[in-house]
């Protein structure tokens, strides 16, 4: 019996689609509580401070399961930035959020230099209206009914939800 349970667990693990970004590093951008489970009222198991480094293990909706020096648990995805915090090796001084984001400048993505069309303002300005390409784009129209069928195939269930209130203008 014990063995059977273990087998089932193993099977479940194998079936589970692996989380694409598991093992990726992240940084806390805002102090937040570590929770035992991925919801607000779950037990608090630790406290993260802004700037804490962590490892991302899993994801559930708006929550990430993380490992950190302050403990393991679930934290709100939107309080975490993926990637390492900037180390002050290159370029202009940046601080806070912007600094975190640009920390990986130059790493990761390769900018190709040949045969690729950039979309800068000059090119957009110089663009000539392309009627045949537009007609081609319009030919791919999906009707509302076909969209519903497509949704049904993906088990997408429409549900009601109000828009979020505007918290007010920012500077």
């Amino acid at each position, binding site marked *: 019996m014990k063995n059977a349970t273990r087998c089932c667990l193993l099977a479940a693990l194998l079936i589970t689609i692996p989380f694409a970004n598991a093992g990726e590093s992240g940084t806390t*951008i*805002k102090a937040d509580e570590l929770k035992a489970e991925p*919801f607000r009222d779950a037990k608090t198991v630790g406290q993260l401070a802004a700037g804490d480094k962590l490892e991302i293990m899993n994801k559930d*909706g*708006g929550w990430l399961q993380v490992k950190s020096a302050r403990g393991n648990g679930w934290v*709100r*995805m*939107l*309080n975490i*930035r*993926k990637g390492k915090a900037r180390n002050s090796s290159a370029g202009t001084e940046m601080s806070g*959020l*912007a600094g975190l*984001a*640009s920390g*990986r*400048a*130059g790493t990761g*993505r390769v*900018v190709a230099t040949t045969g*690729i*069309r*950039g*979309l*800068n*303002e000059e090119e*957009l*300005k*110089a*663009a*000539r*209206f*392309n*009627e045949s*390409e*537009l007609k*081609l*784009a*319009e030919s*791919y*129209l*999906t009707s*509302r009914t*076909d969209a*519903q069928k*497509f*949704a049904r195939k*993906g*088990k*997408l269930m*429409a*549900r*009601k939800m*109000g*828009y*979020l209130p*505007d*918290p007010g*203008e*920012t500077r």
Partner: protein
Amino acid sequence: MRRLTAKLLLGLGMTLCVAAARGFDLGQELRNAASELQKPGKSSALGGYSEEEEVAIGRQIAGSLLGAAPLVKDKQLQKYVNNVGRWVASQSERPDLAWHFGVIESNDINAFAAPGGYIFVTKGLYKLLNDESELAGVLAHEVGHVIRKHHLKILQQSRMVDLGGKLLARQAGGNDKIQNLIGSGAEIVSRSLDKNAEFEADRIAVVLAARAGYEAFGLPQVLQEIGHTGSNDSSVALLFKTHPHPDERLARLGDEMDSRFDGLKGQTLAGRLYRIK
């Protein structure tokens, strides 16, 4: 009423200048425009434009954008994006607009919306996506711009289009007159919208994705991905120039979404995401 008349006169005056420069039958067009304006409620509900006019303006912008970057020649991909986009747009207050979506040949990371429901994503952005809910989130952000008429509003502010648009919308296809009103080429899509228009489109996007049955965090995930592309990487130059930084957008979304989306399960459909060869 007096203000309306003054506005109308001013409008007619400016149209006169535009029209004179273009040289078409001014008298007739002005009479038509005036009678259009007198029809109660015809265009006021759409921020000054009828749907027909809005689509005519959007077509011109979309056709010019495609002149700069054509569609990726992959019918299955384009059809797939239209399926996802139309389903998301069906959850908005304009479900019956003829929504068009497309992936365009560019390695930049960006997405564009034009009035009337024309929405394009670059191949560069598409390739960053991990699942269908992320695509839904990106398209939903652009749908947000269309339903709140963000681009139409800047056109209205920057140029004399309210009467001009009425005079010109009737002609289909590439239209020099509309082109003159929206600026050169597809320049308008490279103009920055008000920062708050971007935040508004983000707020709309997570809700439309959730309404459509998707995992609501698709867009935030894409923003996180884009956020750690270096800001001096040329593929995001235009995006970063015309939008608030992804981190600022994420911070806002975090506050706005708060715990409203906790426990709301949705589909991510990673297996159904169409992969570009």
